[in-house]
C-alpha cells in the first residue's frame, strides 16, 4: 500500500466522506412482526398500570357538585330570572345544604363552575391590558380594553371586559352552626400575583359607570392581592370551566351536612349558563376525572389485543 493509497483510505474513513457519500452509519429499523408485537405489548404493559394508577387517583378524589342557578331564584321570579338578578333591590341570599357522602380530607377546594360561558371568545380574551394591570392608570395605551376603557373620561383600572365581568357570587359554609374557615389566599398562580398584577395598582373608577357588569373591587386593596380577580382573569380554555374560590382547611366527615349561604349575584341567566358549586379534594394528579385513567386502560388493553391478533395473523400466514 503506497502512501497515497493509505491517505485515500484514511480519507474514505472520515465522517465527512461518509456523509457526502450518504453512507453514514445508520440504524435502519424494519417493522418486523417481532418488533411490532414487542412494541404493542410494551405499550400495553405501560398503559394498563399507568391507567389503573391514574384511575385510582381520580377515584380517590371526593367531589360534591351542586347546581344552584335555578334553585337560588325564588319561585316567583323564575319566569324572568334576568330581571331578578339585575334588580339590586331584591336580596340575593340563598341557602343550599350539601350532604357529604364520603370523608373529605382537607384541604377541600371550593370551585364555582360556569357552563356555556365563552370566556374564550376572542373579543373577550383580548379585552384586557396586561401593562395597565402591572403599571396602573399611568399606562394609557389601553385601546384593547374597549368598550370598557374609560368612564366619565377617566380610565378604568382594571380595564377590559374580563375584569368588568368579574364573577361576584359569594359563598359561606356552615357546618353544625359553626362557620367553616375558608382560606381565600393563594388561590391564584404565584407568577400572576408577583409579576402580572401590580402591587401598587389599585382599582380605580371600576364598576362606576351606568353599566355594571360583575363584581366590584375594594379600591384600597392592590390588584396583586385581589386574588378573585387574578383567578378570573386567567381565561378558561373551554366554555365550561371551574375556577378556584377558596379552600376549606378542615376535614369533612361522611354524613356531615354543610349549609352554604350564597349571594346569587352573577347573571348567567341571560345566556342560559349554569352555575355550580363544587367542593373537591385533590389527589397528586388533581381533581376527579376518570377519562385519562379509563382511556389509558383502554388503549393499553387494545394494544395487548392488537399484539395478540397480529401474532396470530403472522403465524397463520407465513410469508
Amino acid at each position, binding site marked *: 500500500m503506497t502512501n497515497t493509497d493509505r491517505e485515500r483510505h484514511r480519507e474514505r474513513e472520515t465522517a465527512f466522506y461518509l456523509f457526502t457519500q450518504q453512507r453514514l452509519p445508520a440504524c435502519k429499523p424494519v417493522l418486523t412482526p417481532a418488533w411490532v408485537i414487542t412494541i404493542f405489548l410494551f405499550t400495553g404493559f405501560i398503559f394498563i398500570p399507568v391507567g389503573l394508577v391514574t384511575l385510582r387517583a381520580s377515584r380517590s378524589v371526593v367531589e360534591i357538585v351542586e347546581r344552584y342557578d335555578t334553585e337560588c331564584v325564588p319561585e316567583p321570579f323564575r319566569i324572568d330570572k334576568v330581571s331578578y338578578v339585575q334588580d339590586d333591590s331584591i336580596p340575593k341570599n340563598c341557602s343550599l345544604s350539601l350532604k357529604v357522602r364520603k370523608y373529605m380530607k382537607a384541604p377541600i377546594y371550593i370551585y364555582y363552575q360556569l357552563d356555556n*360561558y365563552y370566556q374564550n371568545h376572542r373579543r373577550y380574551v383580548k379585552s384586557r391590558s396586561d401593562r395597565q394591570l402591572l403599571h396602573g392608570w399611568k399606562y394609557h395605551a389601553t385601546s384593547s380594553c374597549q*368598550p370598557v376603557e374609560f368612564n366619565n373620561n377617566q380610565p378604568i383600572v382594571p380595564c377590559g371586559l374580563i375584569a368588568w365581568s368579574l364573577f361576584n357570587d359569594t359563598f359561606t359554609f356552615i357546618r353544625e352552626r359553626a362557620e367553616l374557615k375558608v382560606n381565600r389566599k393563594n*388561590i391564584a398562580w*404565584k407568577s400572576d400575583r408577583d409579576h402580572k398584577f401590580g402591587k401598587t395598582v389599585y382599582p380605580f373608577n371600576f364598576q362606576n359607570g351606568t353599566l355594571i357588569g360583575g363584581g366590584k373591587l375594594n379600591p384600597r386593596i392592590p390588584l396583586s392581592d385581589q386574588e378573585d380577580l387574578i383567578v378570573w382573569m386567567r381565561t378558561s*380554555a373551554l366554555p365550561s370551566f371551574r375556577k378556584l374560590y377558596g379552600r376549606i382547611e378542615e376535614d369533612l366527615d361522611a354524613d356531615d351536612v354543610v349549609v352554604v349561604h350564597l349571594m346569587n349575584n352573577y347573571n348567567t341567566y*341571560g345566556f342560559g349558563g349554569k352555575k355550580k358549586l363544587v367542593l373537591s379534594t385533590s389527589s397528586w394528579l388533581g381533581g376527579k376525572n376518570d377519562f385519562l385513567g379509563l382511556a389509558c386502560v383502554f388503549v393499553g388493553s387494545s394494544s395487548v389485543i392488537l399484539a395478540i391478533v397480529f401474532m396470530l395473523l403472522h403465524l397463520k400466514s407465513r410469508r
Partner: protein
Amino acid sequence: MAGGRRRKLALSKIYGIACGKASFKEDHSQIGRPGFSRVVYSNEPDCFEAGIRNYCDNYVRTTKYTAATFLPKSLFEQFRRVANFYFLVTGILSFTRLAPYSAVSAIVPLIIVIGATMIKEGVEDWRRKQQDIEVNNRKVKVHQRDGNFHYSEWKNLRVGDIVKVEKDEFFPTDLVLLASSYEDAVCYVETMNLDGETNLKLKQALEVTSSLNDDYNFRDFKAIIKCEDPNANLYSFVGTMEFEEQQYPLSPQQLLLRDSKLRNTDYIYGVVVFTGHDTKVIQNSTDPPSKRSKIEKKMDRIIYLMFFIVFIMGFVGSIFFGVATENDLENGRIKKRWYLRPDSSEILFDPKRAPAAAIYHFLTALLLFSYFIPISLYVSIEIVKILQSIFINQDIHMYYEEADKPAHARTSNLNEELGQVDTILSDKTGTLTCNSMEFIKCSVAGTAYGRGVTEVERAMDRKKGSPLVHEKLKVQNHIEDSTDINPTIKGFNFKDERIMNGNWVDEPCADVIQKFFRLLAICHTAIPEVDEDTGKVSYEAESPDEAAFVIAAREVGFEFHKRTQTSISLYELDPVSGRRVDRLYKLLNVLEFNSSRKRMSVIVRNEEGKLLLLCKGADSVMFERLAKGGRDFEEDTREHMNEYADAGLRTLVLAYRELSEDENKAFNEKFTEAKNSVSADRETLIDEVADQIERDLILLGATAVEDKLQNGVPDCIDKLAQAGIKLWVLTGDKMETAINIGYACSLLRQGMKQVIINLDTPEIQSLEKTGEKDAITKASRKSVLEQILQGTAQVTALSAMSEAFALIIDGKSLAYALEDDMKKMFLELAIGCASVICCRSSPKQKALVTRLVKSGTGKTTLAIGDGANDVGMLQEADIGIGISGVEGMQAVMSSDVAIAQFRYLERLLLVHGHWCYRRISSMICYFFYKNITFGFTLFLYEAYASFSAQPAYNDWYLSLYNVFFSSLPVIAMGVFDQDVSARFCLKFPLLYQEGVQNVLFGWRRIVSWMFNGFYSAIIIFFFCSKALEHQAFNHAGKTAGLEIFGGTMYTCVVWAVNLQMSLSISYFTLIQHIAIWGSIAFWYLFQVVYGFLPPSFSTNAYRVFIEALAPAPSYWLTTLFVVIATLIPYFLYSAIQMRFFPMYHGMIQWIRHEGHSNDAAYVEMVRQRSIRPTTVGSTARRVARSTHQR
C-alpha cells in the same frame, strides 16, 4: 511562426470546395437597406463613424439580475407563487384588527422564508456572474497599431478590431476571415459548440485579403464591411467588403462564429463584425425554459386543495359565528352574552351588523388557518434540493477520474424527476459511443482475423458467467495483459498475432492481405501529418472511421506518409526482400463517397505502371458489383460480416480491379465531362459514370470497425431496461450506423422484428428525379402513413406472442410522421415497439420527437446528449442530461444535470433519482400532514370558542411551529432518508418503477396523509380537552386555563408530528436523531426561555411551563397518552402493510433485514420476481439466444 507556410498544398482542392470567384447574388443588393445596415470600419474601431454607430461591446451577460434589479425582481418572483402571495396578504392583514394574532409573529417567519429563498437566488446568480467574468476575461491578440498585436481581454473587443486567433483557440466574436497561415487563406473550424457536428468545416477568406498573412500587413490595412444586422441564423451571412476601392461580396464562407474553434490552422486574422449580444450564437441562445417537476406541479394542486379546505372551514366558521353574534342581541335590546358587551361593539363583533361581522370573521379565519399552508414548504424544498444536488455532485461513483469530472446537477429543482423517468431519449455519438472508431476485426480472403473483444461481447460474457466463458475471458485477459504493455493506439484495437509484426507474410493468402491493407492505405481522403521530431505520422480525416483504416494500415506496415495533389506515398513492407520500401502511387481519380453511392473508389497507377481501381463500400452495394471470378470468398466473407454486424460493428467490403489503359482513358474523358457539366443533374451524371467503372470487382475482404461504445454502456442499458425504462436512440447518423449501434448496445438483436420506415422506395426516388416538390411530398406522406399503419398492424397482431419489435425510422420519414395528423399513430406504433431508433434526424426533429413523447404519453422523459445539436432535445425534455465528456460545453450548459459518462446514468436514476423522488414525495406528504394536524386543532378549538377565531395557542407558538419545531426533521428526511441502500437500489432495478408509476405521490397516498393529519388533530384536541376538562389540574387545586390547555395541546402536537416522522423514515443517522429529538427538546427549551421574557412580551405564556405545566403530572401523563394514542393507528397500518402487503421497497428491506442478502439463491429468486421480462438489453438478448438454441 517559421513553419507556418510550410504546407504548400492547396487543401481547398482536395475537398473540392467551390473556390472560384464568389459572385454577387441578389441578396447583396439589399446591403444598406433596413436589415442590412451594419457598417464595420475594419482596423479603425476608434474612428468617428464607428463611434456614432455605438455597437454593443463584447461583454456577455448571462445573469438573471443586476445589483439594481435584484431586490424588486426577485421579490416579484417570490410573490408570484400563490402560497407566498397568500402569506404576503395575510402578513399585511395581520397589521389590521382582523388579526387573531400579533402582526410581528406573523411577519417574521415570512421574512425568514422569503429571505432564505432570495439569498439562494443571489448566490446562484453570483456563480453565473463568476462564469461570465471568466469568459469575458479570456485573452486574444488584437491589432494595436503599426502591425503590433497584443493580448487583450475578450470584453474589450470592439467592432472593427483586427484579431489574430491561434490554433485551438475559440473565436471571441463573429469575425470575417481575412487570412490564415495557409497560402490560400483557408482555415478549419470546429463548430461543435454550435451544431454539435464534430467534423471540421473549411472556411476560406476572399482572395484579395488572402495575402495579408503576417502581422505587419495590417499596419495600414483598411476596409469597410457592410453587412446584415445581427440575427440568429447561423448559416447565412450577407455582406460586402470595400477594399482598395473595390466591392467584394462576403458569404458565410468568410464568417467565423463565436464559440467555434480554430483547428489544424496555426493562426488566422479576422475582423470583428458582431460583438457580444450581437453575435449569432448569443442571438441564437434562447432563455433556457424553466422546468418544474411533476411533483412540484402536483404540489401546487395540493396547495389549491388546501386553500379550498381553508375556505370551507372559514365559511362554516363564519356562518356559525354570524348566527351566534346575531343571537347576542335580542330585539336589539336584550343582551344575551352581556359579558361581551354586544351593545357597544365594533363592527367585527357587532350583532346589529352580523353579516358584516361574519364576513370580517371570514377574513380573520383565513389568517388563522394560514397554518394549513406550510409557509416553509417552498424554502424547505429548495434547501433539500440543493443538498440533494450536492450529494449528486459529490458521489464518488459518478466521478470520472480520467477527466476529473464529477457529476454536476445544474438545476436542483428536478432531482425527484430523475426518479420518475419513463423514456430516455438518447443521442448516439459521444453519448453512447465515445466517438472514436477502432479497427478491430477483418476478414481477408475468407479468413477472420482479429481477437479484439468488443464492449458488447464483454457485457454478454459477464452476464453468462458459464465456465466456458470464464476460460475465454481468461484468455482474453491474458491477451489484453500482454498488449497492455504497448501503449494503446487510438483508433486501433486489432489484436492478432497472425497479422501483426509483419507475420502476415507467412499467411496462406499473403498477397490478398497485402492488397487488402494497401487498399486501406490508399483509398481515402485523409491527410498525413508528420511529426518532425519523432517521424510519427498522424492523420486528419473527414470521419473517424476513415482515420481508423489508415491507422490500421499503418500499424500493419503500410504507412501512408505523404499526399500530394497527384500522388500518395506509402512505406511498405516488401514481402520478398523483407525491407521497408517507399512506394509512390499516382492518384488519377477520386470517386467520392456519398450516401446514395455508399462506396468510394480511387484510381491509381502503381510504380509498376499498373492501373488499379480500389473500392470500399457497404455490402449492399458491393457484393452485386463483384466479378464472376472475384467471388471466391464471398460466402465466408458474408458470414463473417453478419457476425460483425450482430456484434454492432461497422463493416465495409473491400474490392479492387485492374484497369486497362483504354478503359481508364475512356472513363477519364467521360468523368471529366460529367464533372464539368453545369446542368442540374451533374451529380447524377457523375454517379452514372462512376457506376460504370466500379464493376467486375475482385473481393478482398471486409473490415469491421467498432464505433466504440463508452465503458459500461451495454450494462447500463440493460439495467435501465430492467428498471422498466424505455430507451429511444435519436441520432443524426445514417441508418446502418444507427442499427449497428442498436445491436452494439443490445437494443436490437437477431430475431427481433424490425419495422423500418424510410423513403428509399423506387417510386419516390424516381419522383425525386423529376423534382416536383408537391408530388414528392404527397407520395412521401402517403408512403410513410402506409408504413406506419402496416407496422402497427404487425405489432398488434404479433404482440400477443410476446414478439419484440424494433422501430427504425429515418429523418425524412420522421418529418412526415411528426406532422399533426400522423404523429398520434406514429407514437402509438413507437410505444408498441421495444426499441425505437430514429436516424438521420435533425436537432429540431430530436426536439420534436421529445415533445411528442412528452406530451403524447404524459410520462416523464429524459434526454441525454453531448453536442449542441442535442440542445433542443435537452431543453424540451422533462430532464436534460448533458455528457460533459468531450469539449463541447453547449449541451452541458443547457442541461439540467451533467455527467461525464453515459454509464453514470444508471446510478443517477436508479439510486439518486429513486432516493430524491422518495424523499421529496414523502417530504411533501409529511409537510401537509403536519400542518393539517396543527391547523385543524385550531379549527376544532375555534368551534369551542364560539367560532370567534380565538387561537388555542400563544402567538409565537403559532408562528414558530413551521419554522422551528417541525421543520428540521422534515428537512433531514428530505436530505438523508434512504428506504433502500444504494447497493440494493442497483441490485433490484424494478424498485425504480415506484417512481415511474408514482405510487409514492399518488392522490391516494396524499389524501391518506391528509386524513392522517385530520385524524391526529381530532384525537389530540378531544383527548386533551377531555383530559383537562374542568377538574383541578394539579394537586394544589388550580384549574387549567387557556394557556395550560394550549400549552399541553401544543406539546402533544409537537411530539406527535415528530414521532410520526420517526415512524415514517427508515434510516436513522445521528443527524435524524438530532433533528427529531432536538426539535422536541427545543420546544421545551423555548417554553422555558419564552416564559421568562417579561409578561408584556410573552403574554399568556408567562412562566406557564415552569410554574404550571412542568410540575404537574397531568401534563406529562396527558402528553404521553395523547401522543401514543395518536400514533397507534398509523403504526398499526404500517406494521400490517409491511408484514402482509409490503410495497416493493418493503420487500427489499425484508431481504436486507433477514440477512438473505448474502444468500445468493434467495436474492436471485426475489430478483427474478422483480425483474420483469425485458425485451431489450443484454439480458433479454441472452435469454432470447438461449431459447433460440433450445
